[in-house]
């Protein structure tokens, strides 16, 4: 952490929290009883820079700091948070959370132990240390490049968002873990106009890295991609309506996987038997081509973490192996219910929220087909290249996701661009209809944010080229 922004609870901060203090505070949290308690200290610094109409118009810096205290008794959770680190405020939060267990017996003192964490996001140039003028120059480069690329580009905006999240987790299971989580996201969006017809295009990326990200993924490259998309979509025609063969491009299409199976495999829904995958461990839930992992260890990935918000370190966990369901994503609470080890998927948006099982980087692994051969095999269908987002009903797996760049496939060739359209289907159904899988797995450049129960966390997705034999395409052209 840079000296300018220092977590007050850091060892050399203004209100340091060491093991002894954390143990004492956990003691207050468990004074009325309870099976488990944890403390989550957080100090997050965010920066945003917005470049619009050739000017850096907005610049912002946001600091949030606080402690969340959780006490559990059976399936019941007491939660409280404070934004002050004064001892009275901390103990007030611990006592408030402890109410859930009132009337119980005080629990034996907790003994904390810190251990070494992996280093999954080495940073060369911490973004908060880099001068504002350097950041402004990067945004300006994107703006210039987009304008120069095509005379039909009428609006360009570019943005840079940076975050450094310093966390300290102490749990009655004995964890005492520090982590410092950087996050950078760069984005360009453009509007192209010709004869009164307008279309937008965008490109973005980043991850848990520093400003060096922009050396390998240059502002010019993002600008060119945004322009390419807007120009291509100017000629977009109405999309067909009905069930069609669909080919997903590698990378961003992993969002389909995230919606179609990811959420349903979060353990809390399965513990409560509200997911369509409840009691399905060991069953064939997807085509044999499909192996799905949730990998929190990908170097510098947007969803990567050294430690989750309950003190556990995730690895690459296999969820589906050759179509067979082998495991769920667990937080501490659900792991206890299932009698398994937590998988390091206990994540929360901030100290203001309690953790839940959440995805990190969810990937569909490679198959063996040549991507070109996959497209050639489709007589009439849709090629899905870019997505705006998706949503799922976890109780039955019904999902939608919206295509922002798609093309018609006719006689094995990618042809006309299609207007923005939704794909809709059922997760388990679509996963069984995966009939070809490419050998070109790619991880999406870091842009995705996942929402669950009102909490947002950064995630990664990835997949190779995928052919699905039938998905409902929500266009307007009937009989298309």
């Amino acid at each position: 952490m840079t000296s300018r922004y220092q977590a007050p609870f850091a060892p050399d901060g203004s209100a340091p929290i060491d093991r002894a203090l954390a143990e004492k505070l956990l003691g207050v949290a468990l004074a009325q009883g309870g099976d488990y308690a944890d403390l989550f200290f957080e100090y997050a610094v965010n920066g945003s820079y917005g470049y619009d109409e050739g000017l850096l118009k907005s610049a912002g810096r946001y600091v949030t700091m606080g402690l969340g205290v959780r006490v559990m008794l059976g399936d019941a959770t007491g939660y409280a948070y404070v934004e002050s680190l004064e001892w009275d405020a901390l103990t007030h939060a611990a006592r408030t959370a402890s109410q859930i267990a009132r009337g119980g017996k005080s629990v034996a003192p907790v003994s904390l132990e810190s251990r070494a964490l992996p280093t999954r996001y080495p940073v060369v140039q911490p973004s908060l240390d880099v001068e504002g003028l350097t950041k402004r120059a990067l945004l300006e480069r994107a703006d210039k490049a987009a304008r120069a690329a095509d005379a039909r580009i009428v609006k360009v905006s570019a943005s840079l968002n940076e975050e450094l999240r310093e966390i300290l987790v102490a749990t009655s299971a004995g964890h005492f873990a520090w982590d410092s989580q950087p996050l950078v996201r760069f984005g360009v969006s453009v509007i192209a106009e010709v004869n009164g017809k307008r279309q937008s295009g965008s490109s973005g990326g980043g991850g848990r890295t520093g400003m060096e990200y922009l050396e390998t993924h240059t502002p010019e490259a993002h600008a060119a991609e945004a322009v390419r998309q807007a120009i291509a979509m100017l000629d977009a025609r109405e999309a067909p309506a009905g069930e069609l063969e669909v080919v997903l491009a590698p990378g961003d299409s992993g969002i389909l996987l995230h919606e179609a199976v990811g959420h349903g495999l979060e353990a809390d829904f399965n513990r409560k038997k509200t997911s369509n995958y409840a009691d399905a461990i060991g069953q064939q839930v997807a085509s044999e081509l499909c192996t799905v992992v949730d990998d929190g260890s990908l170097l510098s990935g947007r969803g990567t973490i050294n430690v989750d918000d309950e003190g556990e370190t995730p690895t690459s966990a296999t969820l589906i192996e050759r179509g067979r369901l082998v495991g769920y994503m667990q937080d501490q609470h659900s792991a206890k219910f299932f009698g398994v080890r937590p998988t390091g998927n206990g994540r929360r948006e901030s100290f203001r929220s309690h953790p839940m099982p959440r995805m990190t980087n969810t990937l569909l692994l490679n198959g063996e087909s040549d991507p070109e051969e996959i497209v050639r095999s489709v007589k009439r269908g849709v090629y899905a290249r870019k997505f705006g987002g998706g949503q799922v009903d976890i109780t039955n797996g019904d999902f939608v996701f919206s295509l922002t760049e798609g093309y018609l496939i006719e006689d094995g060739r990618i042809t006309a661009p299609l207007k923005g359209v939704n794909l809709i289907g059922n997760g388990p159904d679509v996963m069984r209809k995966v009939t070809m899988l490419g050998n070109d797995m790619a991880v999406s450049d870091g842009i995705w944010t996942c929402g669950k129960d009102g909490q947002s966390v950064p995630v990664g997705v990835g997949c190779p080229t995928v052919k699905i034999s039938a998905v409902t395409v929500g266009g307007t052209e009937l009989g298309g």
Partner: protein
Amino acid sequence: MTQSKQQGRSDELLRLGDEIVARALEGGASVAEASVREGEHLSVKVRLGKPELVEEAGSRAVGLRVMVGQQVAVSYTSDLTEAGRARLVEDALELAQLSEPDPFAGGPEPALLSREADWPVLDTYDPEMGTLTADRALELAIRAEKAALDYDPRIINSEGASISRAVGGSALVTSGGFRGYSDGTYVSLVVNPLTEDADGKKRRGYHWAARRFLSELDDEVEVGREAARRTLRKLGAKKIESAEMPVIFDPDAGRAILGLVASCVNGGSIWRKSSYLVDRLGTAVASPLVTIVDDPLINRAPGSRRFDGEGLASRRNVVVAAGQLETYLLDSYAGRKLGMSSTASASRGSSGGVGIGTTNFVLQPGQETHDELLARTPRGLYVTEMMGFGFNAVTGDFSRGASGFLIEDGALGHAVSEVTISLNLDQLLQRIDGVANDLDLRTSVASPSFRVSAMTIAGR
């Protein structure tokens, strides 16, 4: 909270605002605006009759916008220690040096700022809200969920019932001479039962209620029963054949459509040219049955407020009158960009920045009842929920996942799921041929049921 405690809080927040503004001016800002927020909230959730979550917290934070000449920056902190407050001011001033002079930047004309005497009484604060303790909220939630579980043996599981209440106050102090405080309360209850088709496919439904005043919240048992009814009627939902047919949006689904309209009349989208409604002022953008008003002056309504995010007096804006687009929603910046006046639609985000937002953005109810609307639809789709993000504001292209019911002979038939509905929003609004009178102001963007004469349904 008692009157005097409320007064004490407003004084304290205003004083903190004064201090931050003074520091920023001392540091060289030509304009400084501080918003100080404080809130307390309680959320409880029960599942299968047992408490699952009790969450209680209070929070306070400051957002600051400064201008140095026409260079603008914002900062925010929840670290209100002396060091944290100093950091807040220093960050904003430093970032203002980095941003580039924007000829349109600036606060509102001082003459337009509202004063206490201008502010209407909107009754947004329920002094009784604090009487809803965690124990009492748990009791209500347990009763609501039980009413759903007991309603019918086919309700086999539950995602629980939740109650949240929030009490919040915020002070806005600007160097232009505005000094104001406003506060509000809000309580909501939601029940989520589950049922299962014969083949084991799970169906989730819900019902919810929300009000600013605790005593006005719908009866919890009735909310639970309605949640059960709504869940059961989803049994056996299936895809239908792709077709073009009339679509009726129920108030929850209709609200989502209204939200899209709100994003397209936002002045920021207009000057950025990222709305299909650019250059459409004074033209027909919807059927003559459509009148949309953004009204911050409704007593006890969720989006009501006394002044906007820049301190201008709240005013009622008729956005669409009998189908014609009358105005965009503007703050003073967008107003200057477009050569128009602010509509007092500035919204100050918790992070200190100023954007444009809606207050109570409402499709005005029509004459017909909901049942009459249904009865004159021989065949169509009745949409209760939509999924996904399929909307392109630049072109108006709209395509979203939908579920609801097939309308047959003027009545609700079998449940429908896994279809998409598509139509450009411009055409969708033009094709509205019926607006019902079943408006309920539970949320700040609200709609009665309405019918669109034809949309494309993609299914089998």
